[in-house]
């Protein structure tokens, strides 16, 4: 028979005001199992805790019930008290007689009666508690960063700085991501390449950082501290160790029909190419879709001109398996395709472009070498219309775009408008907007400069139709402030298209069992208090993968994610939650039902010789990895035989509670 002590807290008058604490502790004395019962003004105070510790010693208690405030408040406090007094901390149960009793009832008799039931229920549960030991698991001291944009680079640099190895896996042939495509950055208007490329170089030269470009993560197993990833490094058909990045092959390649992804496909590139001059690694890659040699077997010019002998048409994909302690998701974003919103005429008119396309048109390394020329006839546009919120802020049922604000468009449009007015003062610039959103340091000042110094024409209203008439684009929209419908004959129309997560994000989320929202952004563990962690332990979030954000915010979040990664990698062992599922091998059918509902992949099946009373045979049985299990209990209900149970919330414990309440 267990010896249980019950400690009823007054919480000053918070509990004692509506609950007769004396009566409760008295009533508990007659509950089977209870050998000691007391009440005290503040059980959580040092004196209160001493009272508990003394009682544990004196009465040789092997379990305690504290009837007090919510366990969310002081369960940990009392567990520590118990532990200090030599009791297993999981032999503590809390009866919540404050939030769920004294505070919601006025009648003292009613409150007292309920408090007795709640305390009795906690005792009933405690009678089935078992001492639990928190386990430990080792930590592999290496991080994997998925995505090599500014977010991934910054996280990798910070983690490497703390002395840990980091692998960056980037799907494109170079790191740099979207920021590499930008011309200038707001609100300071410094050149994007000038601040990004040094970081790229730094990453490539850091001996703790290993860049695996043109690659994708194909599989991830394991759990926090102990992930194992399989990475497919796609064949570049160029030996990375030999290529010098001289780009001679590019000028000789006869196939020039590949679309230049870096320039938003506004011009062509050769089949063998380096995405841009400052690419890291600065190594060529062959596009197998375009390469004549790979497609027809005839050509081989690049091989002939390569003095380094780097070309290898027989190169195969390579599979890399590595272990990691932490994984950072920095998969970034892409602009949406505005073609379906064809009242803007994007699909039909070359001179209706997206903002990212404009970035390339204004960039010195872009298709027009930095001179702003409109795509259709390479003429200077003299009247430009910007349209905000294209595909953002839409009601989901309309299927016209994303429900969220893409956050960066107001600022980059102000930037574009300003840059154009600065460089081409003869060009008129109009911006159709719904709201101008500029929360950020120096942001509103920046927007005001666009209006006041650069004379950008902001029109509050939306565009209904863009139609080509002659060589003009007729933009019809509303001007709500002037209460009129306006029509502007523009030479160029720029759509501030919504941004969405990179298309690879969803499959990566599934692979990592990291939860995502309906827009495919990764969900943070807590919106305010744990903003850079996924609810799945060991997975961290960096950059737009978590939600729309600009460069400064991305860098800040990337460093925050790095801090969390460092905090994890700095540990030699992780303490695991002992309230996890376990399978009774004598009862397990090995039917695989539980595996289907486990959100963490914590359950595996093994063939094992099972021994028990009258049983000795090899069976397929479920095994729970306690380091991965988070203790939700989904498996316990799916299990038809009751083999699967949850420590701390066992079937017997919950049924005992049910019985005690219904007594």
């Amino acid at each position, binding site marked *: 028979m267990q010896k249980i002590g019950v400690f009823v807290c007054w919480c000053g008058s918070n509990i004692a005001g509506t609950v007769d604490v004396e009566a409760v502790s008295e009533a508990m004395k007659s509950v089977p199992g209870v050998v000691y019962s007391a009440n005290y003004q503040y059980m959580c105070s040092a004196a209160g805790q001493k009272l508990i510790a003394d009682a544990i010693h004196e009465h040789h208690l092997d379990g305690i019930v504290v009837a007090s405030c919510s366990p969310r408040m002081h369960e940990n406090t009392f567990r520590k008290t118990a532990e200090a007094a030599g009791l297993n901390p999981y032999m503590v149960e809390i009866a919540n007689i404050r939030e769920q009793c004294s505070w919601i009832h006025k009648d003292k008799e009613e409150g007292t009666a309920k408090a007795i039931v709640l305390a009795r229920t906690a005792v009933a549960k405690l009678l089935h508690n078992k001492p639990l030991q928190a386990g430990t698991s080792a930590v592999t001291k290496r991080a994997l960063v998925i995505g090599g944009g500014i977010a991934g680079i910054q996280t990798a640099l910070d983690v490497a700085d703390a002395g840990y190895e980091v692998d960056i896996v980037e799907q494109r042939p170079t790191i740099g991501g979207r920021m590499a495509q930008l011309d200038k950055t707001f609100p300071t208007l410094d050149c994007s390449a000038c601040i990004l490329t040094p970081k790229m170089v730094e990453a490539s030269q850091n001996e703790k950082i290993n860049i695996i470009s043109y690659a994708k993560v194909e599989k991830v197993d394991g759990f926090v501290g102990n992930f194992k990833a399989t990475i497919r490094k796609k064949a570049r058909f160029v030996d990375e160790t030999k290529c010098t990045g001289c780009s001679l092959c590019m000028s000789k390649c006869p196939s020039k029909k590949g679309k230049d992804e870096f320039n938003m496909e506004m011009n062509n590139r050769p089949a063998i190419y380096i995405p841009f001059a400052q690419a890291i690694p600065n190594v060529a890659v062959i596009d197998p879709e375009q390469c004549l040699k790979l497609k027809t077997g005839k050509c081989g010019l690049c091989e002939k001109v390569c003095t380094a002998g780097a070309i290898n048409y027989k190169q195969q994909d390579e599979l890399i398996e590595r272990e990691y302690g932490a994984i950072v998701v920095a998969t970034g974003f892409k602009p949406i395709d505005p073609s379906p919103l064809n009242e803007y005429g994007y699909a039909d008119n070359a001179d209706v472009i997206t903002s990212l396309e404009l970035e390339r048109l204004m960039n010195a390394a872009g298709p027009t070498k930095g001179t702003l020329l409109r795509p259709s006839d390479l003429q200077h546009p003299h009247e430009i219309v910007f349209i905000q*919120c294209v595909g953002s802020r*839409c009601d989901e049922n*309309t299927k*016209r775009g994303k429900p969220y604000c893409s956050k960066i468009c107001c600022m980059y449009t102000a930037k574009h408008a300003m840059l154009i007015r600065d460089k081409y003062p003869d060009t008129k610039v109009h911006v159709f907007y*719904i709201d101008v959103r500029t929360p950020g340091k120096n942001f509103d000042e920046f927007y005001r400069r666009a209006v006041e110094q650069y004379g950008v024409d902001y029109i509050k*209203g*939306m565009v*209904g139709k863009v139609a080509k008439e002659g060589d003009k684009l007729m933009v019809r929209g*509303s001007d709500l402030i002037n209460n009129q419908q306006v029509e502007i004959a523009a030479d160029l129309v720029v759509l501030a298209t919504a941004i969405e997560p990179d298309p690879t994000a969803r499959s990566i989320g599934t692979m990592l069992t990291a939860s995502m929202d309906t827009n495919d952004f990764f969900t943070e563990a807590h919106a305010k208090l744990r903003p850079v962690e996924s609810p799945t332990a060991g997975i961290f979030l960096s950059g737009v993968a978590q939600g729309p954000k600009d460069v400064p915010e991305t860098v800040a979040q990337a460093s925050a994610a790095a801090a969390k990664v460092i905090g994890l990698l700095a540990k030699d062992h992780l303490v695991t939650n002992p309230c996890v599922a376990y399978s009774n091998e004598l009862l397990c059918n090995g039917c695989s039902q539980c595996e289907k509902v486990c959100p963490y992949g914590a359950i595996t099946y093994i063939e094992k010789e099972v021994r028990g009373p009258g049983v000795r045979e090899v069976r397929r049985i479920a095994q729970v990895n306690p380091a991965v299990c988070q203790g939700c209990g989904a498996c316990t209900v799916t299990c038809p035989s009751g083999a699967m149970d949850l420590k701390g919330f066992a079937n017997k414990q919950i049924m005992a509670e049910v019985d005690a309440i219904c007594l």
Partner: protein
Amino acid sequence: MENHVQMLTETALRISGVNPQKCMKCGKCSGTCPSYDAMEYHPHQFVAMVEKGQIEKLMESDSIYMCLSCMACVERCPRGVEPGKLVEAVRLMKIRQQDQNRKNGNDIAAFADENVPQQLLMAAMRKYRK
């Protein structure tokens, strides 16, 4: 009076099925409306005015007869507000009142010539009278 306004607003909302609170006041409806210049109150104002209970003003305005029912505002509204349905609702509320036909049968018949298609006359019967 208060009650009357409330009743009118509720009727407009009920028969149109429109929730004006979904509107984010972007003005796209008015940017796309082909009848904009013929209207005293423009589509986005219909939404705002119904939300504020100013139905009577709308009922007294010729704007309710200017809508082409072309559904461009309905189609293009990013919030799914469907302003066109509100215009229609207010128009119906007007002509359903006694002696409030915009045009009578003779007016409409007078319009017919050898080219006017039946459906245009039929549409006018529906749009202008009860």
